[in-house]
């Protein structure tokens, strides 16, 4: 198959015949090699570059007691407790110490359910309170991952904030006593 015809050497020949030099090179081994290397590079590289989500947390060092902070109105807040087995317990615009909190605590799952809930709550807050003086929504989402929740749950919840464009959200890990009472054994 692989023939590189060497034309030319016709000195000894009696009949001088101009031989047509065929310069066909068999490419098969070269193609083999090419694809072998391609396979290697495909397998050895990472194609999809991971993306990153930036998180900014409030400064712990500053003395909070000296700062005057306005308490949040419960009617503007959606609290999400991230529990075990991929469930979320949501308190929609109601404080944990409210009498109705126990019956109002909703169980939602990640994905469309959670998204719908956030959108609903957002729309409701916007209707009741309107925009603030900077023209932003007054809706606040508090994410409280419980001990049994996983890292994925937290990332999902934060991602949901990006999807629903909720600008004001907080990641809080401590539960208040009222919340502990409310959640009971779900808090573990």
């Amino acid at each position, binding site marked *: 198959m692989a023939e590189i015809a060497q034309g030319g050497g016709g000195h000894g020949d009696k009949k001088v015949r101009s031989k047509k030099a065929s310069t066909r090179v068999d490419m098969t081994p070269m193609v083999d090699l*090419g694809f072998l290397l391609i396979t290697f590079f495909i397998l050895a590289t990472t194609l*999809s570059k991971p*993306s*990153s*989500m930036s*998180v900014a947390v*409030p400064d712990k060092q500053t003395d909070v007691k000296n700062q005057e902070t306005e308490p949040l109105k419960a009617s503007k807040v959606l609290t999400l407790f991230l529990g075990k087995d991929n469930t979320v317990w949501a308190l929609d615009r109601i404080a944990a110490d409210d009498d109705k909190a126990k019956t109002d605590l909703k169980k939602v799952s990640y994905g469309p359910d959670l998204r719908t809930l956030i959108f609903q709550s957002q729309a409701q807050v916007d209707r009741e309170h309107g925009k603030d003086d900077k023209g932003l929504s007054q809706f606040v989402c508090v994410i409280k991952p419980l001990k049994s*929740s996983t890292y*994925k749950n937290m990332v999902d919840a934060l*991602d949901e904030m990006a999807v629903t464009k909720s600008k004001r959200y907080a990641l809080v890990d401590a539960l208040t006593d009222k919340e502990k009472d409310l959640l009971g054994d779900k808090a573990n």
Partner: protein
Amino acid sequence: MPALKPKRNYPMMDMTAMCDVAFLLLTFFILTAQFKSQDAATIETPSSISAIKVPDKDIMIISIGKDGKVYFGVDNPATRVAMLENISQTEGVQFTDKQKKIFSLQANFGVPIRGLSQWLQVGATTPDKLKEINQPGIPTDSTAQNELAKWIYQARRANSGLRIAIKGDNVAKFPVFKDVMGSLQAQNINKFNLITGTEAPPQGWKAD
């Protein structure tokens, strides 16, 4: 009369075009290649719609494995050595040049400072065995023994421009992440990145 020889006719195919394609693809893959680094543990990250890419250089990655073990890694080998020397000074642990060399080759590690010398010695004598050793993870829990905080501090001393990224596994529990976050916050690091996979945003969603 010579015996009638059937004329063999090999089907010849022109491979030139195929060869061209193969090498074109090869060139593409070589140029876009980013080699997988040898990590101490495989971590499956959750995905998010975030479109920010993880920076290539000047980055420290704190990984949380699925069993809650914490691993630490810096991208640049020179920074790794400088960081190790800083730790060696403050903790009073000595390392040989060979051990430092081995350390500079590790993308990340999860060994407590006390066991580090022994672990690196394995790498110095029998390099193949190093991968097989089960790494216990870096202690993060109590404040006195928070070695992760020490590593972060020394890494930033070695290279002050380091960005911080946390790479957690899907099933890692939240309290481990909280400890890691606590170590960062204790040093006034309040902004960091979470490394996630990429996921398509829902239809009609636009970034603003």
